[in-house]
């Protein structure tokens, strides 16, 4: 029972990691830029939903959707306004631009709520469901269903619809896509928007669970990296699988080995995977062309 309970909580936790990793992977696949400030977008999503629920008094579902929309716009603006403008600069500049944007978001949240630790009102208040001895909490159920629906939506859109095919085309070769008349710049903006929106959904799902403080996002960045690396950098399915695996691994390590190791499970995963199998579980090795 202990084993299954840990796995169950691990999956709930892993679902959030999967969502964050997938949103980072979408941005990477579409624009070859890894968003080192992504954790703060998750935090921004949580704060926006708090603002709408507590200050504006909107019901949770409405404010959740509004928050995701706002973050979509923010993500697109970041790409078009900032990332696109430094395309000519040194390649390393992208990483710092993402970090700077994240730091600016954290600073802005700090300036307004620096001293507050904000509680979100309880949203899903039905008691936990008992599966035999296994306890499935309301929050876990919500996260599972939300992430599940999202993944089906995303992969359906990505592989089934024409918009999805455009996305795949640009992911494979930007120049090729541009040649056939796809507006690559707008596409990058859209994909950053999608990434930011999905990150915000992660924030929205986590908000009721934990308390909101500007430093909320930092942890998610490293967990997202570990999930992407485990699943194979750049592989969308891999990011999801990696996230779920990481969540479960953390709980098992905590349950069976030592709770002190939970914190560094992500780091160990990154180092082990890159040492043993750099392309991760589902990724392809990056061939260096002469």
């Amino acid at each position, binding site marked *: 029972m202990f084993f299954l309970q840990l796995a169950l*909580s*691990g999956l709930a936790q892993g679902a959030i990691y999967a969502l964050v990793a997938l949103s980072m992977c979408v941005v990477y696949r579409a624009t070859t830029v890894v968003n080192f400030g992504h954790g703060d977008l998750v935090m921004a999503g949580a704060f926006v939903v708090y603002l709408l629920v507590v200050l504006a008094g909107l019901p949770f579902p409405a404010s959740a959707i509004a928050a995701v929309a706002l973050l979509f716009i923010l993500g697109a603006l970041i790409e078009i306004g900032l990332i696109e403008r430094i395309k000519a600069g040194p390649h390393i500049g992208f990483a710092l631009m993402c970090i700077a944007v994240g730091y600016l978001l954290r600073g802005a949240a700090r300036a307004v709520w620096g001293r*507050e630790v904000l*509680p979100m009102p309880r949203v899903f208040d039905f008691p936990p469901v008992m599966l035999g001895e296994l306890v499935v909490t309301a929050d876990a159920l919500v996260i599972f269903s939300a992430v599940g629906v999202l993944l089906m939506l995303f992969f359906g859109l990505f592989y089934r619809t024409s918009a999805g095919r455009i996305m795949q085309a640009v992911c494979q070769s930007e120049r090729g896509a541009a040649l056939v008349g796809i507006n690559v710049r707008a596409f990058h903006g859209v994909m950053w928007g999608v990434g930011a929106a999905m990150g915000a959904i992660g924030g929205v799902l986590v908000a009721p669970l*934990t308390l909101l403080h500007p430093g909320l996002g930092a942890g998610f960045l490293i967990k997202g990296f570990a999930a992407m690396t485990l699943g194979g950098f750049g592989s969308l399915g891999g990011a999801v699988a990696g996230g779920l695996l990481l969540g479960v691994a953390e709980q098992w*390590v905590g349950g069976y080995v030592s709770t002190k190791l939970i914190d560094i499970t992500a780091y160990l995963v990154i180092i082990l995977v890159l040492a043993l199998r750099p392309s991760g579980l589902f990724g392809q090795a990056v061939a260096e062309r002469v």
Partner: protein
Amino acid sequence: MKPFVHLLRPCIAIVAYALATTASAADTAGITDTAIKIGVMAPLTGSGSSYSKAEIGLDAYYKWVNDQGGVNGRKIETVLEDYACDSTKGIAAVKKLIHQDKVFMLHGNSCSAVAMAIKPVVLEAGIPWVIAHAANGAISSPATKNIFHGVPVGKTMGLAMGRFVMTKPGVAKVAVIQHTDDWAKSYCGPAMEFLASQSIKPVVEVALERGQTDATAQTLRIKQANPDFVIACLYEAETAIFLKDAKKFGLNAPVMGTAGTDLENTLKRVGDLDTVANYFVPHMYADNLDGPRLKRFVDILKKYYPSESVTAFSLISMGGGAAVVEALKRSGRDLSREKFIAELDKTRDFDTGVLAGRITWTAADRDGVKEVGIAGFVSGKPTVLKAWGQRL
């Protein structure tokens, strides 16, 4: 380097001269006819920014003292410096306050590690420093010439927590869950030392990292050990998560928290009374946060910082502020650091009005507040307890 050889002699002269001169701070620095400058260091940014509510409360208190006519005809001018819970910024801030702003005294600091880093700088300058919030007792003891603790130190809290746990009949197995940082250690450390002196070793010690949104592994390991009492040195967010998971997995042992959380806000975060029914915290205040005896201080805070929400950290430094103002008054018009330190050392059983314990400072003991109460929910209302199941 040939062209520079003839410059060698003057260089050595400059270096020797510079090494000889040492900066000395005047005994009456920071005092003018109309003002007393007090340096307040607060972690406004960085990971510990929620602690800075203590220094904001203190600043409000000093502004209120000024509106009541100040001290012996002088207004208190506070200089707020942000050090983001980082030692490098902390040393820069304290050196700026001492040597550039030339403040009369320091009253601040929430982060123990940074307080320990700036301690030698303060000792060397000989400037009076009343610690506003940091709990690590090693900052002010063994007693030094100019450092005073304005809040109960971790040792006092830890002992109160340990003693209260022992008052539960038949307690034998105790579990500990804590963060792996110095804040948590300053509470859990002394508590476990006291329990060890009563020959009780923790049956299980579990770590929960800051920012975690799930404590399943920790809760299940504690539940396996089936303890009589759980000591939880966690911040507000993680405390709420742990209590929710404990209820979820049927761990119904009582939980002893720290002064970093308060009953009212924890109840609000957890959402239902049943989850916090068995949750206890050291209670430093003379009353509940929304109780009548603290109303005066809450109003002071609201007057100068209207948008500030009241939590366990908000009023904690006002006690030290009251003691400082008292000593400043006794020091009279021709104020000096020497005189002020001597007056501080005469503080005996001073009732600050906001803290439950009274402040006593002597040349040999600078811990300040010795007694700390314990509070828990009794029939749904936060009440101060003398022992397990006994109201004060």
